[in-house]
Each structure stands twice: as structure tokens, then as C-alpha cells.
């Protein structure tokens, strides 16, 4: 799914100028490029799709080909100010592992994901079909997504894993959703920290 402008802006607002940033599942590198231009971050993108590596290089960002299912071995603790994963968490099997890794190598983590409990998704299920929408654009048989979860599920997991939610925002159609986000929002964004930090 293509990055949305609001996604960029919210993430940029959580990042200080000149920070060290790691962007997991960086796609073609456009978010990192945006953060370099607006926040002068020193960053690296991580991808495992060869074509996206080529696009990221063409975009002039640092990109590293790594399999996120293997974690972030080789990267030292606290190497980054922020570790970002924008709209990729649902495509990774090792959910708990990668969240732990993000908060190991990063002081804070930024995560966004499609909300499976969005009302349009619920409606599709009630009608007997798997949801296909802007935030979940694939068919059930060709989706790269392997984890289907909701805003409520994610917050429960954070509580269970001792991950502190420093900030959480929910969106629908690029607009902030304040009421009933688990029903009304198609995408959620979180800024996460460690309990003891």
C-alpha cells in the first residue's frame, strides 16, 4: 500500500531533526526520503524485496536487504532513536519478536497498521466475504498479509508485552478519528516505548 501524506506527516512530527532512524519494510524508500528532507534524519531502510531495493537505491536512500522474520541480529542495542514500521507489521509472522527487536535497537518504535475491525471490514465479513479495501487492498488468496488484527488487539498485545503506548492516532480516509477508532478508523499509528525507559 502506498504511503499516505498524513502517515508521513504524523511520523515526521514524532521525529526530531538529525535523529538516527531505521525504517523496516521501507518499500521504495519514499518515507525515509521524506524524513531526510523534512527532518534531516540519518537513516536506513530495510527491505527484502529485490525490486524495492532497486527502487530505494534509485531514491537515494540507504537501504539494507534483510529478512525481518530473522529479527535484527547484527544491529546493536539502542543503535537508533526511532525504528519505524509503516503498514508492514501485518505482513510479518514473528509479531512479538519484531516488536521486541524494534524496541531493542531503537529508543522508540513507530508502528502503523490497517485496522481489521474497521466498519467496512466488519460489513464485508457480515456479508460473508473477506474485506478488500484501501487499507487491505489484496484478495484473500494473494495477500502478503499474514496477521489480521485490530486496534484493540494491538493495544492488548502491547499491555501483555510490557510495551508502553506513548501516543496513538487513528485515521480514516486521511482524517483523524477521535471517536470509536476501533470501529471508525482504517489505519492506526502508534509511538511506542519500553516500560523501564
Amino acid at each position, binding site marked *: 500500500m502506498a504511503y499516505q501524506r498524513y502517515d508521513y506527516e504524523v511520523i515526521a512530527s514524532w521525529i526530531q531533526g538529525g535523529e*538516527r532512524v531505521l525504517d523496516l519494510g521501507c518499500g521504495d524508500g519514499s518515507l525515509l526520503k521524506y524524513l531526510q528532507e523534512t527532518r534531516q534524519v*540519518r537513516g*536506513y531502510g530495510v527491505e527484502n524485496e*529485490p*525490486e524495492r*531495493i*532497486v*527502487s*530505494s*537505491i*534509485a531514491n*537515494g*536512500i*540507504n*537501504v*539494507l*536487504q*534483510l529478512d525481518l522474520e530473522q529479527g535484527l541480529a*547484527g*544491529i*546493536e542495542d539502542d*543503535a537508533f532513536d526511532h525504528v519505524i514500521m509503516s503498514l508492514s507489521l501485518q505482513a510479518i509472522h514473528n509479531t512479538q519478536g519484531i516488536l521486541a527487536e524494534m524496541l531493542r535497537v531503537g529508543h522508540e518504535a513507530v508502528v502503523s497498521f490497517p485496522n481489521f475491525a474497521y466498519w467496512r471490514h466488519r460489513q464485508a465479513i457480515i456479508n460473508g466475504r473477506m474485506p478488500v479495501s484501501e487499507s487491505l487492498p489484496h484478495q484473500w488468496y494473494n495477500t502478503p498479509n499474514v496477521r489480521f488484527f485490530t486496534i484493540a488487539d494491538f493495544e492488548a498485545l502491547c499491555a501483555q508485552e510490557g510495551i508502553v503506548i506513548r501516543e496513538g492516532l487513528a485515521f480514516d480516509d486521511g482524517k483523524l478519528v477521535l471517536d470509536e477508532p476501533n470501529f471508525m478508523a482504517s489505519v492506526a499509528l502508534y509511538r511506542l516505548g519500553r516500560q523501564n525507559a
Partner: protein
Amino acid sequence: MNNASSVGIVTPQVARFDQPLALRCGASLPGFELVYETYGQLNRERSNAVLVCHALSGSHHVAGHYADDPGNVGWWDNLIGPGKPLDTDKFFVIGVNNLGGCYGSSGPLTTNPATGRRWGADFPFVTVEDWVDSHARLADLLGIERFAAVVGGSLGGMQAMNWATQYPDRIGHAVVIASAPKLTAQNIAFNEVARQAILKDPDFHGGHYYEHGVVPARGLAQARMVGHITYLSDDSMDRKFGRKLRHGQPIYSYDVEFEVESYLRYQGEKFAGFFDANTYLLTTKALDYYDPAADCGGDLTRALSPAEAQFLVVSFSTDWRFAPSRSKEIVGALLHGDKRVSYAEIDCAAGHDSFLLDVPLYHGVLRAYFDNIRV
């Protein structure tokens, strides 16, 4: 790609240096010569030069062919030329034969001024660091203050890496392909088997075989056979040869039976027909000695800290001689040192030799990277 073509006919040139070159082994070369080739045009700002460093058996003949030998095509011709990933319409590309080589640069085959005879085994040990110093002299001669990029695969990648730390203000980009920050014991062991094959050949004569009118061809062929196995992958050998038997069934003989035996013998003998055994010995030692982190207590991040260049590191999935994990060590050290680095791990069945092939994604990565270099 679409309208990519060859650089065409090329002519090697010789650069003569009369200032002594102090070597890491403690010896000093009173003067030396380097054979090199260039492709494309040096621009007015002299900002578009790219140095290509060769590996164990490579040479200065990187692209194009010779007028009197059209079949002799440069070893990286698929990468370098007009419209190719390392585009000679944009870059001025230089290939150089390293010191100690056997393609014309000062080495065991050339004359020792002190004796008037071929250096042979008396040619001093040369290291990656020494090669980089000699390249810098060549750059001075050509009026190149700063390379847009230094590129190399395998041992060539080590030179590119060292360029970034030895002359940080003279290199914009280091492209390190199928390389490693140092050899492992297993890797050194392969080199030692190769060296022993040469050193134990009765025709070696302590490295002064030229004077005896012979070459240690058996030893050199055997050395190449060992090396060659390590440059291929288990899979690619299996696909190419499997257990195919020349006679269709075992004939219970030590003559060639399995096709892989025939192939290795052919490769070994071919190599022994043109390469110099002393160069092979010297070059494998340069590989073994390479360990830039040694002076920093093994801390590669600290060893690479002087670098100002941007890095591209590339590895290949089936390369076990210079495995992806070794490239990741380089990447990790650069990342922790706050250096600019990109890393690609290319899926290719051909093992270490993959770096010489025209793998679309590999060349796609290089093309995207070189296209982004401002000159």
C-alpha cells in the same frame, strides 16, 4: 540493456613511477610500473573517474577487446560500457593490474633492477594496502584528485573498502561486492592447499623456475582446481555435472570418469597455461593478510571510521567462499559507525562467481546506484 554496447577496441597503457614505494612487509620497491586501461572520457572537472579493482586472477583488461585479439574480452565487459550499468558515457573507468601481477605491472615476471633478472620469488610481499597506495600514485599521474567510485569484487572489494579508509577524501563511493572484512581460517586453509600444490611442484625451483625454462604447471593447475571448486556452489556443480560419467558406467580407472573431473582438469590446465605461479602465491597471501580491523583490536567499526565515502555492499545467496554473512559484517560495522551504506543480497545459483555474471537484479542494483552518483 536496450542500447548498451561494448567500449570497443582498447589499448593498455603503462605508467612508470620512479619514487620508491614503501610496502607493509618492510621492503620497498625502488620504482615500479603499472599497466592500466581506461574507458570513456575524463570530464573537465575530473570528477567522473571510477577505479575497478581486480580479484585473484583478474587484470587491467576490464572491458572491450584488443584490435589484434578480438576474442580477448575484458573480464567485466558485461558491466562496463556505453549504456551499461557502469556507463562509460558518464564515467571515466580505469582498470589496473595490481603490483605482483602477471599482466605487465611490476611483479615476479618483470626485471629486478638490482639483479637484471626476473624478480621471481624475490618480488616482495604486497598487501591490499600497498595496492591502494600504488593506485593512488596512478590517480596522481592521471590528474584524478578524487574517484567518483572505487569498485571491486572479492579481493577487489577489499581494495575498494581500503580505498575508503586509506584515502577518505579521495573517494566518493566504495562498491564492495562478494567480499569480506577478512578471511576465515577455512578460507585461508583453501589458499594454503593451493600454495602447497605450487610450492611442492618439482618444477617450482624455489620460485625461480623461469631460469630453468619450466613452470610449475601441475601445481598451479591443482591450485586452480581447489580454488575453482570454492567459487562454485554445490547446486550449480550438481546441475552442470551431476554424477555424469564419460563412459556411461564406471570403468574403475583414475583417468577421467566423472564429467566434473574432466571440467576441473581442463580449467586447471587452461589457467596454468597463462597465469604465473608466483603471482598466485603472492595474491593468495595478500588475501590472507587482509584484516583492516586487526590494528583496532578487531573492531571493524573503528577500522572503518575514517571513511567518508558512501558504500554499496552486495553479496550472493549461494556464495560460500565469501558468504552473505561476511558482507553483513561490513554492513553492520558501517551502520554502527554512522556511515552511509546500502546492502543487497542477490539470489543467484552460481556461488562466488556470481559477481561476474549479468544477473538482472544485480546489475539493476548497480545501475540504480551508479545512476545516482553525481559527477
